[in-house]
Structures are given as C-alpha cells and as structure tokens.
C-alpha cells in the first residue's frame, strides 16, 4: 500500500486540521464541561468560588458561540497522531505546520511562539519544537489526530520530584508519591488557573516522565485507571486535594482539582522521578479520526 500523500489528500488534511484547531481552541470538551458544571453545583451558593465558576461557564458558552479562543493563551500546540505502518509522516507534519500558521492568521490561535534566543515572535506559531507532533504507528488503516493546547500559566506550576525527598518525608513508595503530588497541589495554589487537572507519571527519566504525564490528559476525565493501585491513588489525591480549601483560582472553596490521572513507567534503579503536569480549567483537547479522503470521519471527545 502506498501512503504517500497526494495533493488532494493534503488539501483535505489541511482543512481537517484547521477545523480541529478551531474547535479545540473555542470549545471545551464535553467531559470537562460536565465536571465543571458538577463542581459548580458543589460549591456553596453566594461564595466567590461559585461566582468564579459561573464566570468560567459563561466564558465557555461565549467562546463557543463566537468561535473565539476560550483563553487568549492558546498554549503549546501538541499533536498526537496514530498512523498506519508506512504512513508519510513528513508530509503530515508539514501540513500540520501549515494548518497552525493558517489558524493563527484566522485568529483561532494567538501569535504565541517566541524565539528563545532573540525574543522575536514572528507571528506564525511555527519554529523549532513548535508545534510538537508525536507519531505512533498502529496496525489499523485509520489515521487519528489528537490535539492539546497546553497553557503557559499552568505549565509553570508543573513539578518534577526526585525521591527520596527528606524535606517531605517522601520515600520511594506510593506514599512518597502521594506526598509529593499533594505538595505540588499546595505549591500551585490557584496560579495555574484552577480548578485544575493533574497528569502524573511515576518513574521514567526526566524527559519521558514529563512526556507521559502530559499524555495522561488524553484520557477521558471520568475514566478509571485499569491498575487498581493507581486508581486508588488517583481517587485519594482528588479527594484529599479537594479538602484543602484552595478552590477555583485559589479564592478558597471545594473545587481545587477536577481530576487526577496517573501512569507508571519503568525507571532505573538509581532514579525515582515523579513528574506532575498541571492543566488549567481551560482544558483544550480534541481529536479526530480521518476517513479515506482525510476528511473528518468523527470526533474523538
């Protein structure tokens, strides 16, 4: 089978990717919206936590109606692409970059990418490492594309811990992991535009730990971990974090986190990292499955 992309397919792919970017930026996924509405119910009436969540909800509705970015920080642009064996990844990545630049011109994305050495923002959102495209091969003939727009304010409150950590009495066990994850929640307060969602990786190296922690955000917010030990830890951290009284925006309240997603990766005997990514309430991720003509066959979230 020949997977080289012809120009008609490239055009269709381009259109599909621009629509994926538009929808990801302007519309919060259903599962996240449901969780936000549930937390709005939970908060005491007349509190500032309740008002904050109401404003957030109004913002979600306005952004969708106007087809405008939910938040002006349209974030790091990260694609996760599942492809059949032999797929032309180079052509796909080139089309991704073109779709990003076009979406920036249309205002779906802010001019948000800065040359780290010169400080220059050329307004295209494309440069070294931007956008990021991760490819995974699979045995199915379908192509699916997931997109995450990961904000900067919440990225800044992410943390990586190396165990053991005496200061927090954190040993190389699940209790140690629990201690550092909850420490990250307290350190973050409301600064990552909470209520937030944690993606955590136990193990890995410094790079893969953060990478896998981010991939946890591709899970549905209301799914359950298939590993009972991690499932228990996820539920425990969610419950405990919501008892700390940090609340939306750190104003105080019951909703500090909307979800916790944890995975484990093997580590070296010498290291034990716990890597924590924080996603803000403006949790922008969507996905599409493409049909044979590279039009959108269905939405994944």
């Amino acid at each position, binding site marked *: 089978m020949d997977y080289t992309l012809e120009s008609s397919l490239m055009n269709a792919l381009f259109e599909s990717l621009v629509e994926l970017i538009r929808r990801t930026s302007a519309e919060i996924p259903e599962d996240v919206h449901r969780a936000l509405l549930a937390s709005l119910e939970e908060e005491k009436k007349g509190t*500032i936590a309740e008002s904050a969540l109401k404003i957030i909800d109004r*913002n979600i509705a306005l952004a969708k109606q106007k087809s405008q970015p939910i938040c002006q920080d349209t974030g790091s642009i990260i694609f996760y692409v599942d492809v059949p064996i032999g797929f032309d990844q180079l052509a796909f990545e080139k089309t991704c970059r073109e779709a990003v630049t076009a979406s920036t011109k249309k205002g779906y994305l802010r001019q948000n990418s800065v040359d780290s050495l010169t400080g220059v923002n050329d307004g295209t959102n494309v440069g070294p490492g931007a956008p990021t495209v991760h490819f995974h091969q699979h045995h199915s003939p379908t192509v699916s594309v997931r997109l995450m727009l990961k904000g900067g304010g919440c990225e800044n409150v992410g943390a990586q811990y190396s165990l053991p950590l005496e200061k927090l009495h954190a040993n190389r066990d699940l209790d140690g992991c629990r201690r550092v994850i909850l420490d990250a929640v*307290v350190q973050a*307060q409301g*600064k990552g535009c909470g209520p937030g969602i944690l993606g955590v990786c136990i193990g890995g190296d410094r790079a893969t730990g953060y990478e896998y922690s981010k991939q946890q955000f591709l899970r549905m917010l209301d799914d359950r971990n298939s590993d009972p030990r991690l499932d228990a830890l996820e539920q425990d951290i969610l419950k405990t974090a919501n008892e700390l009284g940090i609340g939306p925006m*750190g104003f*105080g309240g019951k909703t500090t986190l909307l979800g916790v997603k944890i995975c484990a990766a093997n580590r070296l005997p010498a290291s034990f990292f716990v890597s924590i990514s924080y996603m803000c309430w403006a949790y922008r991720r969507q996905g599409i499955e493409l049909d044979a003509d590279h039009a959108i066959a269905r939405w994944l979230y």
Partner: protein
Amino acid sequence: MIRLQTPLTEAAVRGLRVGQEVSLSGVVYTGRDAVHKYLHEGGLLPDGVSFHDGVIYHCGPVVMKEPNGDWKVTAAGPTTSIREEPYQAQIIRDFGVRAVIGKGGMGDQTMAACKEYGCVYLHAIGGAAQVLAECVRKVRGVSFLEKFGSPEAIWELEVVDFPAVVTIDAHGNSRHREILAHSQAELAKRL
C-alpha cells in the same frame, strides 16, 4: 458585590477587604512586563496617560482593527502578576495607582505598598478572555504600540461591570497568604 467607579478615591479603596467581589466600571490601563520595566527604569508616561487614582490591568489583550478604523478587544483575560513584583510597589508609589488587576496574586512588597499608599490588588478570573473582553466597551487609545508591540502596549480601555475579587487589601491582608497557610495546615493533617 461592590461597585467601583474610576477615578478611585483613597477612601473607597481603603474601604475594601479581602474576599469581597467587586464590579469595576470606568477606565483601566493595560500594562505588563515591558511597561513595568520601562517605568521602573525612570521612563515617563506618554502625554494624556495618568495612573493617578487609576487602575493598571496586567493584561496583553488581543485587539483587532475594525473596518472603520476603531479598535476592538476580542480577548482580554489577566496575565500572571507575580512577574511585576520587582516593579509594582514603586509604580504604585510614584504614579498614585489605586488598583492593580491581574491573576495569581502578588508578593510582600506589593502588599506593603498597598497598605502604605492606599491601593488594592483585584484578582480577575484567569482564562475568562471572552467574558472580560465583553466588559470592554471601548478602546480609548493606545500608547507604545510600536515600541512594545500590541500585547505589551498601554491600552486605555473603557470597562463596564468588570468582575474581580479583592485578594490583597490596603490593610495588610492577602487572601493568597491566608489560603496558602490554611491549605498547608489541612494537608499536614492528611499526610
């Protein structure tokens, strides 16, 4: 909900307490990293721009030019304030600022300046770019557009019912400090 109208008086500002919700109408000036650094280094405000009894908004808005030449703000959420901590106290003192709007809170120097000179920190809802853009009814003008670029320029915005929460007041209280201490104590019980 407490209604505030610019220009703000010292009495109105000193009457506010942490945890109160406010709804601000009048004029606010955006200013972020470049403006704060520039003023800190002795730069002067352009003619016609005065922060006296006024409001600085830590925001890099998205502003589009309409066909008739008017500016329109299409996204206007707050940016992280703590980056201005090295400069904010001096700017409150030297320019007579009565309120600073942003997100994430500020540090001890700003808190001390709020107390000494009669200023408050108002926390807007981070990420609520669309709701807050709707509160901006008019762009009155812009300064330093060429010099600093659009997000870093000083935009003079007319706002109506802009919602925010007082998280640092003029009495030495900080909601951020209170919640941090409270959450640390609650966590200690659960370890």
